[in-house]
């Protein structure tokens, strides 16, 4: 029987019928609308998390000024900033936002294979965000246990938010994981089952590869967080002792006995390390596509890039304890985890080389997305290299728990993915909205964000080498931290506030361009991938009109010799050859 994509089978068609306002924008089952719902929600909480980080920076720079920042508040800001940025912004935005928008369009599907579950995924995600926000208003406020939520302190008095905040946090995480699972199963199934004719796995754009593998990581990693959240809720509410041994709290010995705080750390980082790649792999994929498109050149070493994504994804499950070198776990683990961690540097380095080699001999257009992509290469190289310090167990000893760690993970997991997000939003904005953005504002946004963030995080590494500890409300007087460190703190804060403020440029640009931007062509960048070949821009529900696209070639036929145009869409047949399934043709 001839293959018919699930989304193209007759009985599915009613999903794509015209709808009322409510079914179109509120209870929508269109992956593109859900993507935007995810995106707006994630970016909104991201702005909140950015404001929280500004509060932290104000306290660190001007410790005598802001009377509303007590130590309790400070640790609450630290915690909520970290958790929101990692989970509720980046994970949700890359997978729920970009995953939703790009997977069906880039794979040539009409929608996700389970549109109803997809819609439910967003609403459950929104519920998790509402629970999280509610924790700001409960007695005692949100938890201040640090985003890692290490017990016992996360549930014992002495830490802010141990009455209600921690419960709201854990419940919100559990709900988020339910939402992610519904979305994640959809993304994986859609990639595996709903690709259009000719779209073999090895013809998929790297954006899809990155999101696909990241989703698999998420489906395998989040359950570890879910069980640890449930176990901690039980420890907190009914007095089990999964994570709590016999302890003294506020001068009295508690009833707990025999639990292991390190067990929680293993579970947390078994999730937490893959989480780094849940955020990084989609960014890798997106950056690859941005660079290839705007350099008018095929991605260099496509197969290597795919295998690097898969290898990084697989390795990310055997490196988690590099977050725990000084946790008190059996120190012999250090040998194993240092080795696996440094091995992961190899496929990661290959990705950086291949991005630069894609630019090599290209015809580079300095569009706004390209500038963000090049900025990403710089910051990611920096953040990746400092990771080699912390991944190597001995080198980690003096640096662990200092500002070096803060500098490192913000470069690699904060700045870099955010640059990728902005590059991606500018790149796909014409397809999402049907309009072009303002190029000048986009460039200002890039320059100020890129230079601003580097001046925030570069000095932090040096404060860390000096030994300045992270998560300190105030350094006070020590024998080794000089006055100049406080001066640097002021400088870092000024840069951070600047970066926060200039994000207004982005919002102004997007909002202004939605109404007043120049009408966009269906393929303004001259890109090869399917989302730029839709009959309508923005694509209508169902994406492709009456006929699904057919794919004849890989995603990177840029500047093919002997062709008049410098790109060949994936839908273009090879001359004198009508087979759609012949990958070997791709490389000719």
């Amino acid at each position, binding site marked *: 029987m001839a293959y018919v994509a699930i989304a193209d089978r007759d009985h599915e068609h009613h999903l794509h019928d015209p709808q009322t306002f409510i079914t179109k924008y509120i209870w929508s089952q269109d992956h593109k609308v859900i993507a935007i719902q995810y995106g707006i929600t994630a970016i909104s909480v991201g702005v909140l998390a950015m404001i929280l980080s500004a509060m932290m920076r104000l306290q660190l720079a001007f410790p005598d000024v802001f009377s509303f920042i007590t130590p309790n508040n400070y640790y609450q800001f630290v915690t909520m900033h970290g958790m929101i940025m990692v989970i509720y912004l980046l994970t949700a935005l890359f997978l729920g936002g970009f995953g939703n928008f790009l997977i069906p369009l880039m794979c040539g599907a009409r929608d996700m294979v389970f549109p109803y579950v997809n819609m439910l995924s967003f609403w459950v995600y929104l519920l998790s965000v509402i629970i999280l926000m509610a924790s700001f208003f409960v007695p005692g406020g949100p938890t201040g246990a640090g985003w890692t939520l290490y017990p016992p302190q996360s549930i014992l008095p002495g830490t802010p938010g141990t009455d209600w905040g921690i419960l709201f946090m854990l419940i919100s995480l559990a709900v988020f994981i339910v939402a992610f699972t519904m979305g994640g199963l959809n993304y994986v199934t859609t990639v595996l089952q709903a690709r259009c004719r000719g779209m073999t796995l090895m013809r998929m754009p790297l954006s899809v590869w990155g999101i696909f593998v990241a989703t698999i990581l998420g489906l395998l990693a989040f359950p570890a967080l879910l069980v640890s959240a449930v176990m901690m809720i039980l420890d907190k509410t009914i007095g089990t002792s999964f994570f709590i041994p016999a302890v003294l709290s506020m001068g009295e010995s508690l009833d707990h006995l025999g639990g292991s705080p390190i067990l929680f750390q293993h579970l947390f980082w078994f999730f937490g390390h893959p989480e780094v790649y849940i955020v990084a792999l989609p960014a890798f994929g997106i950056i690859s596509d941005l660079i290839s498109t705007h350099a008018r050149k095929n991605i260099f070493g496509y197969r290597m890039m795919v295998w690097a994504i898969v290898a990084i994804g697989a390795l990310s499950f055997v490196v988690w304890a590099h977050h725990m070198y000084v946790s008190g776990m059996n120190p012999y683990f250090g040998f194993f985890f240092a080795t696996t961690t440094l091995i992961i540097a190899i496929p990661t380095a290959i990705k950086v080389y291949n991005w630069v080699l894609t630019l090599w001999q290209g015809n580079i257009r300095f569009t706004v997305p390209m500038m963000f992509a090049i900025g990403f290469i*710089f910051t990611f190289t920096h953040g990746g290299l400092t990771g080699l310090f912390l991944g*190597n167990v001995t080198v980690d000893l003096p640096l662990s728990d200092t500002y070096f760690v803060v500098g490192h993970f913000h470069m690699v997991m904060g700045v870099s993915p955010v640059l990728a997000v902005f590059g991606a939003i500018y790149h796909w904005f014409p397809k999402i909205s049907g309009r072009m953005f303002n190029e000048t504002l986009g460039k200002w946004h890039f320059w100020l964000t890129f230079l601003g963030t580097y001046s925030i995080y570069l000095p932090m590494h040096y404060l860390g080498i000096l030994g300045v500890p992270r998560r300190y409300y105030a350094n006070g007087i020590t024998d080794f931290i000089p006055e100049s460190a406080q001066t640097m703190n002021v400088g870092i804060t000024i840069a951070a506030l600047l970066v926060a403020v200039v994000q207004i440029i982005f919002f102004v640009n997007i909002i202004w361009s939605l109404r007043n931007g120049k009408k966009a062509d269906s393929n303004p960048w001259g890109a090869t991938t399917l989302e730029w070949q839709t009959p309508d821009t923005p694509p209508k529900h169902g994406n492709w009109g009456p006929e699904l696209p057919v794919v004849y070639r890989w995603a990177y036929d840029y500047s093919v010799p002997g062709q008049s145009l410098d790109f060949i869409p994936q839908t273009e047949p090879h001359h004198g050859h009508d087979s759609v399934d012949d990958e070997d043709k791709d490389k000719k």
Partner: protein
Amino acid sequence: MPLAVVIILLVVATIIFHFASPWWFTPIASNWGAIDTTVNITIWVTGVVFIAVNLFLAYVIVKYRHKDDGRAHYEPENTKLEVWLTSITALGVAAMLAPGLFVWADFVNVPEDAAEVEVVGQQWRWSYRFPGADGVFGSTDIPNMSVDNPFGISPDDPAGQDDILVNDNTVHVPLNKPIKFLLRSKDVLHDFAVAEFRVKMDLVPGMVTYIWLTPTKTGTYDILCEELCGMAHYAMRGAVVVNEENEFDSWLSEQPTFAQTVARPVGDPVAGQAFFAVCAACHGPQGEGNLALNAPKTAGQEGWYIKKQINSFKSGFRGAHKDDIYGLQMAPMAAILVDENAIDNVIAYINTLPDNPPETSVTGDAARGEKLYTTCAACHGRQGQGIWSQDAPRLAGMTDWYLVQQLKNFKAGVRGDHASDFQGRQMALLSLMLKDEQAIHDIVAYINTL
């Protein structure tokens, strides 16, 4: 083009920053110079890669910038180049990893002759234990812990009787002797970190972890907690003093054993009453306090706290700052209590005095004070009752004007400025949250409602 220039400038600026930065490793004071070597190897390898990749990137984006008649080169793969790059990367990674693993092997394996000292962490202070003459630590358990047995040593374990207890944030260690630090926590995670020693490790409740090192330079070094342990994490400070061996030995011989701390006689209120006559001149016959003489209420205050303060006055931790007018008055008074027994007797008498609530004199916004007090509650308790394990005195039902005065002193550095007064320094660090004078009045107004 501007992007290439900026990338080159960023590389140059990073190199300049690296060499000009005043922030670098503290001068090392332990045997772990090899750790610094591994860090330096990593800096060189990664530094070369950072410079090479980014300068090449800058070159590429200049050379291959868009030209209208330009055309990109079509080359999907170059296996030879990819194999080369992978191999060189693997080599660089191995060059960083191998030395690291050798040093780690040294770190994991403690020398046989290492002396042992136990570091005990709790919210939010340090204390220490030496194994004593028998070289064996007595067993401990959480339920044993009390104000009289803060280490929780099992009273029945003979090995624990001669354990030497240092119930203070400062510990001394001998120079040039390998030392194994056994790390134990009473409550939550902490991390024992001394920047000058390079090595650090978490303290985990329910288990004993360790690090080892040989101090190589005499001096006093800060111990910072580097694992988030609750609200006052940043104020959990200690010090390690590296002494010549003879100085260390004499310090150690002054520290009490567990048996000695337990055997101390109970205070005698009758004997204490005679001494208290002197105190009563200012603090009042019932220990009720006297605003005119700036003497706080003592009746109802926790005995361990009064004892600690008297000892602080005696040893010059408190009442030595030139601006601490009333503290300066108290210091010679405290000297009257010549020994521990005299102090215990006075406290025993104070314990017999009636605990009547004093008149309140401070006004403020109690609602705002309640919000701020959530931070204070982490040590002083939600009811302001004081908690022995946090070294936090009772606040509720005590003289409120005195609380205001002391908070101002902490904030101004008049109290809690002595290097060895860790509890005072801790409170000074916490008083950083009082960013205006109104905050002090609001908090005390709230305490008056407790």
